[in-house]
């Protein structure tokens, strides 16, 4: 195979002493991306399952694609609707507009994040880890479309370095990397992350879309509720996703397709996912019955980042609880916490991000308790 031969011919340049040794991790990354590595086991089991972390991460990215595609369309749709031109805008036109608005964010996220990953892997003499393939795809989907690229780059750099690499890389981090990037933006640049001016793209791009007046405002349904107004979206729009919000979070249907892929391939835990919904639903029902929130309990579930967080963020295997039993507690806690923040804290219309970060923080504690019960059982048995 000619490509294989070409790669093998290049290899010596990247080995110790070669002139391109500084890029060895990059070469290895591409080589293993193009071809399954030849390396065979030297001890232990002679056969291995064909699954590896590259394939797992790829599956998560695939599961995210429906949400991304719908997010692109929704960017164009919100722009056209705000301009009052929904009648004349075409489906393709709105989709293309959104695609062009979103692509730079994905590119910047990957360039900055993978750049740091590659450099770090080279410095440590390790293989490149695939974790950022998912984080880098998630980050553009959980920020508002109007976020400046430099802020995004800064947040990505912060998250990759301070929540992942310094802990030891993918698999060792305590907090979800994508959410850490969002939290960084949320607290550093609240003006670009919250409020009612950021959810709709206001400029024309390459002649596509419409220019909106500077003072145009459009809040998310949850934002309107927080200000005491009524949500101006129908349940249909909330489920289909034609409402303002972070890019990937609006469509329940697109997220559901991703959820099916993740559960079917066994990459995300259905236990975690289900228990987030149970926790959120139960807490929302409680608040609804006491009159603390004007929303129906199911509206709490379909609005905001709840579904997106439940499906793609709470189920992150690294930062969630790792014991089967612990996953139930972990998920329930996140769901309940998200609704509590929304309802009880007037400053924060949305609580999913903080709830999951809180869940990440207590996940080791939950696991500790579960494992400790096994330890106690063993200790008791030994005494008998």
């Amino acid at each position, binding site marked *: 195979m000619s490509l294989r031969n070409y790669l093998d011919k290049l290899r010596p340049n990247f080995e110790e002493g070669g002139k391109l040794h500084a890029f060895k991790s990059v070469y290895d990354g591409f080589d293993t991306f193009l071809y399954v590595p030849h390396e065979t086991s030297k001890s232990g089991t*002679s056969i*291995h*399952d064909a*699954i590896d972390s590259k394939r*797992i991460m790829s599956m998560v990215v695939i599961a995210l694609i429906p949400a991304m595609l719908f997010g692109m369309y929704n960017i164009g749709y919100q722009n056209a609707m705000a301009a009052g031109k929904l009648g004349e805008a075409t489906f393709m036109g709105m989709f293309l507009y959104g695609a062009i608005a979103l692509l730079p964010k994905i590119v910047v996220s990957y360039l900055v994040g993978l750049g740091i990953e590659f450099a770090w892997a080279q410095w440590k003499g390790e293989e490149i880890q695939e974790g950022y393939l998912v984080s880098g795809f998630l980050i553009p989907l959980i920020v508002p479309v109007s976020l400046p690229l430099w802020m995004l780059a800064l947040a990505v750099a912060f998250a990759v370095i301070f929540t992942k690499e310094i802990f030891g890389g*993918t698999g060792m981090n305590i907090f979800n990397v994508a959410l850490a990037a969002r939290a960084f933006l949320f607290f550093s640049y609240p003006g670009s992350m919250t409020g009612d001016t950021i959810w709709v793209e206001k400029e024309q791009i390459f002649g596509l879309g419409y220019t909106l007046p500077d003072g145009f405002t459009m809040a998310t349904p949850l934002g309107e509720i927080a200000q005491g107004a009524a949500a101006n979206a129908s349940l249909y729009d909330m489920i289909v996703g034609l409402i303002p919000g972070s890019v990937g979070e609006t469509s329940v249907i697109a997220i559901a397709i991703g959820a099916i892929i993740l559960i079917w391939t066994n990459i995300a835990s259905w236990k975690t996912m289900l228990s987030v919904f149970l926790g959120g639903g139960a807490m929302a029902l409680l608040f609804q019955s006491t009159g603390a929130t004007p929303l129906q309990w199911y509206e709490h579930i379909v609005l905001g980042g709840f579904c997106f967080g439940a499906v793609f963020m709470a189920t992150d295997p690294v930062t*969630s609880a790792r014991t089967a039993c612990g996953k139930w507690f972990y998920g329930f806690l996140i769901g309940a916490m998200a609704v509590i923040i929304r309802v009880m804290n007037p400053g924060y219309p949305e609580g999913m991000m903080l709830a999951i970060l809180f869940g990440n923080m207590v996940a080791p504690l939950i696991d500790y308790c579960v494992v400790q019960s096994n330890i106690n059982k063993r200790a008791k048995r030994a005494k008998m």
Partner: protein
Amino acid sequence: MANVIKLRKGLDINLKGRAKEQTLPLKSVGTFALVPDDFVGMTPKVVVKAGDKVKVGEPLFVNKHFLDLGFASPVSGTVKEIVRGERRKVLYVTVEADAEQAYVDFGVKNVAELNADGVKEALLKAGLFGYINQLPYAVATTPDTTPKAIFVSALRDMPLQGDFEYELKGQEQDFQTGLSALAKMAKVYLSVGGKQTSSALLSAKDVEVTVFDGPCPAGNVGVQVNHLDPVNRGEVVWTVDPTAVIFFGRLFNTGKVDLTRIVAVAGSRVKEPAYVKALVGTPIATIIENNLTEKNHTRIINGNPLTGSIVSGTAFLGAHTSEITAIPEGDDVDEMAGWIMPRFNEFSTSRSYFSWLMGKKEYDLDARIKGGERNIIMSGEYDKVLPMDIYGEFLIKAIISGNIDKQEQLGIYEVSPEDFALAEFVDSSKQPLQQIVRNGLNLLRKENS
């Protein structure tokens, strides 16, 4: 009726080249060897020199710390060579076999009339005691241990493993004698598989028979111990390979040491997968050399593909090895974009592949790791194939971090590396779990000695 324990966790890997129930003749060879490493954790002291004459049953080496614990020569003849490796570690002792085999006569004994010490002494004298393994530490046991129970698993369910029921045919009497002998020393649990029907197993005397019904690793003796009588700190159980039970039985019934066993020769690179009758210590080359479809890029394994050791250079049929397998090495396979292609010929527990659609398809897996080693990312992968009341992932992490207290609390005394073989197979982070467990056991054994 025997007690039945149903196991749900586990995984049967259906590999191509399972051995047919037929015993092929084996050309007898000149040189045999006994390998100290087959008796895990034992430091050998060689008691013969090159040129010495030995009979079958005379020790070739002894345990350095228990000089009366010898290891019997499988053949009679002339000691040829003591091969040493790094730091003068004894790799193996070879014996050139005589045409006429001479046996040490240990005397026929009626097991019913022996007591525990009598059985132990007989096994020690004949150089067979070292075939008994133990938990904790999953090592060859020593005469100073007192077991709370003895476990024998008659079920071999790892991929391509030789079927013990086939090996048992014609050996029923020796097997029963061996069990009765063990029962003199402690309570014996005999575990059989859900599909096994041999009456020599199901109605064996002097033992408690338990049926383990479920996928691999139901046959792992460690799994069975965990369900029947788990090992606590300070306790010892003995685990005995069923073939070794036959060896013991032969000793009492005939007065001779006879280390002949039926070995499966299996795998996708084997021309005619079947069984052979061979002595412990037979060179592996003579067993498999003329039965390979392809010599290049072929991996020969002393054991099964999950727990066996890779044969490189000269190797000999292991003391506890019930099969020799040959699979493709795979180092010449170029497969593009493994992260997305359907890869219909690959087996995986992940539904991102199509194994779940393929029913009983037999797979021809090679020895590639098929991914880079990563930190443990996915959770719960190990638990799905570890039917023990143990948090496998947390135990592995305790071992990696060298936390001895945690290892003890999480049950390291109950496990052996083979219990983690399936976990190592399914692990998407490609961690060398069996090696990690072995390192942990070695560390603990050293700390506790």
